[in-house]
């Protein structure tokens, strides 16, 4: 038991309690629905944050890993008739495997070239999803995916499904926190700061980059299978370039290199379009304006803004400023 384990466990525990309490304050099933999608997006954002926020490697193709696992479990559980847990395992494994294969040549690229390569990969996967109609159902989507059932329990109510995704999300957050504090996390941050310096210090750069890339794809894979068995329907439009960009925005808006920031960014961006639905046609304009002003007025993201606010309040009270959870994990944004 490392010294940080207890601290991380209590934080993730508090997070889990908050997640489990959330439905008590929500009036109806519609909000639970949004919470589920928010939790699923937060799961991907957590993984992408490890890659982008900590290791400093961008991926503009993460929607592809999310989609691959969703389609894999959809295909396995309907056409192949496999049991749902097997389908889900297969889905996550496929995402991780593809990430491993594509990561080996791609992660040698740097900066904008890496962005382009992952972007291109995402677009290619999306086009294949659209065109292989006999496997994926094409643009009109894959219908008839069974609702999740594990060990004889069918998660047919949205509430039960929410508790499941919330539990998975809390576990993923705990895993991320521990990973960041461990030797691996230090190596990732070293790579972000300076690859050359990290290499000189004996960090296996290529190995760690590939590891964190595959890991973040696996996070997206878990999210993908949860998504497929929740909506019981998947279509290629959910896994396109647009969603990949949105995932990056979640991480950056939340505050790079902050676990809680990524989660907050994901829930915020999931709920925002729903909140703007009342504005009908101008909702997209407001969405864009909010995005631009968030970047302009919160350059360190939500986590950065929260810790800044806390510092200011602490100063006013005259006491010591306890840093926000986000800030302690190393402000390596940038």
């Amino acid at each position, binding site marked *: 038991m490392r010294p940080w384990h207890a601290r991380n466990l209590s934080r993730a525990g508090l997070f889990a309690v908050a997640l489990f309490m959330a439905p008590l304050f929500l009036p109806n099933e519609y909000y639970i629905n949004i919470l589920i999608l928010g939790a699923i997006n937060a799961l991907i954002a957590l993984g992408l944050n490890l890659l982008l926020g900590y290791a400093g490697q961008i991926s503009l193709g993460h929607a592809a890993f999310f989609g691959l696992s969703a389609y894999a479990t959809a295909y396995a559980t309907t056409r192949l008739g496999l049991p749902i847990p097997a389908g889900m395992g297969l889905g996550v494994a496929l995402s991780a495997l593809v990430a491993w294969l594509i990561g080996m*040549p791609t992660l040698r690229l740097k900066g904008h070239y890496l962005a382009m390569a992952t*972007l291109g990969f995402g*677009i290619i996967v999306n086009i294949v999803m659209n065109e292989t109609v006999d496997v994926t159902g094409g643009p009109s989507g894959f219908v008839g995916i069974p609702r999740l059932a594990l060990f004889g329990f069918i998660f047919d109510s949205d509430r039960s499904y929410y508790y499941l995704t919330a539990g998975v999300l809390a576990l993923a957050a705990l895993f991320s926190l521990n990973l960041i504090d461990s030797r691996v996390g230090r190596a990732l941050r070293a790579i972000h700061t300076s690859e050359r310096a990290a290499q000189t210090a004996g960090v296996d750069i290529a190995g760690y980059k590939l590891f964190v890339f595959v890991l973040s794809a696996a996070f997206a894979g878990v999210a993908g299978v949860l998504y497929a068995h929740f909506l019981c329907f998947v279509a290629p439009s959910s896994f396109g370039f647009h969603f990949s960009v949105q995932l*990056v925005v979640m991480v950056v808006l939340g505050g790079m290199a902050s676990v809680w920031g990524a989660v907050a960014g994901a829930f915020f961006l999931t709920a925002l379009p729903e909140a703007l639905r009342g504005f009908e046609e*101008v909702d*997209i304009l407001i969405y*864009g304006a909010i995005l631009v002003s968030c970047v302009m007025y919160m*350059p360190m993201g939500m986590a950065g803004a929260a810790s800044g606010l806390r510092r200011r309040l602490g100063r006013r009270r005259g006491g010591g400023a306890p840093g926000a959870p986000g800030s302690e994990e190393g402000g390596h*944004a940038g």
Partner: protein
Amino acid sequence: MLAAAAQYLVSGLTVGATYGLTGLGFTMIFNTTGIINFAQGEFVMLGGMMSVFFRTWLGLDLFSAITLAVLATAVVGAAMERLTIRPIQGASPINLVIATIGVSILIRGAAMLVWGKDTFSLPPFGGTAPIAFAGAAVQPQSLWALAITLALLTALKLFFSTSIHGKAMLACSCQRKAASLMGISVARMSLFSFGLSGFTGAVGGAILAPITMTSYDVGMMLGLKGFAACILGGLGNPFGAAVGGLLIGIMESFGAGYVSSAYKDAFAFVVLLLLLFVRPSGLFGKAGVERV
């Protein structure tokens, strides 16, 4: 057989010209500011859509409509720099990129509100009678597109090598700090680069509109292809961006003709990925020297 190949080549070059101009817009902004501008595709969309708008709603003739549209897009580009990029110029690159993504969502949303979701087209610049060339039927519009692209490239080349503003922009791309020490206003060059990118992108959009039609949402894919063009040619190299654009257009056109039209968009990206695995800095890019 040869006739088909010639046909694919011409149509590839025509579309590639727009990709090249879009890529050139990316390059100009990247060189002076270090930003990848994800709203570049929306400039191309605005060029096409505003030409249609000025022609049909204001009743202008084709030439004035396009000129006005191109100038208006340049103003949009400059306004974008002033309102969103300038206030946060010290921010981290990823924040600036996300600001440009936000702007692209705004522009697309505004275009949808103003012009709706319909598809529009512009009449071709010169006649419609196809010209026979090596067995292929070439639309006069293709020749117009190529000629205008060539003229614009020459003009830009002259601008950068002879005019004081062009040289100042080049200086910013070499070394921003040194340029500012020499009395060049880097902030103004950043403004110019956005305006000029809007201009170039809009020209690309206007020459493409008669060939492929246009609507409020064509910007994203065109922007991605333009980005692919400059990566293919080597980021920061204007010549590379133009050649990269033409190459992507040709690859797409041949891919669609000989392999499958369904995978038209995927084809260029597959080749680009394979190329990056072999040459991580693009075709004409210099291998970066990293300072520790």
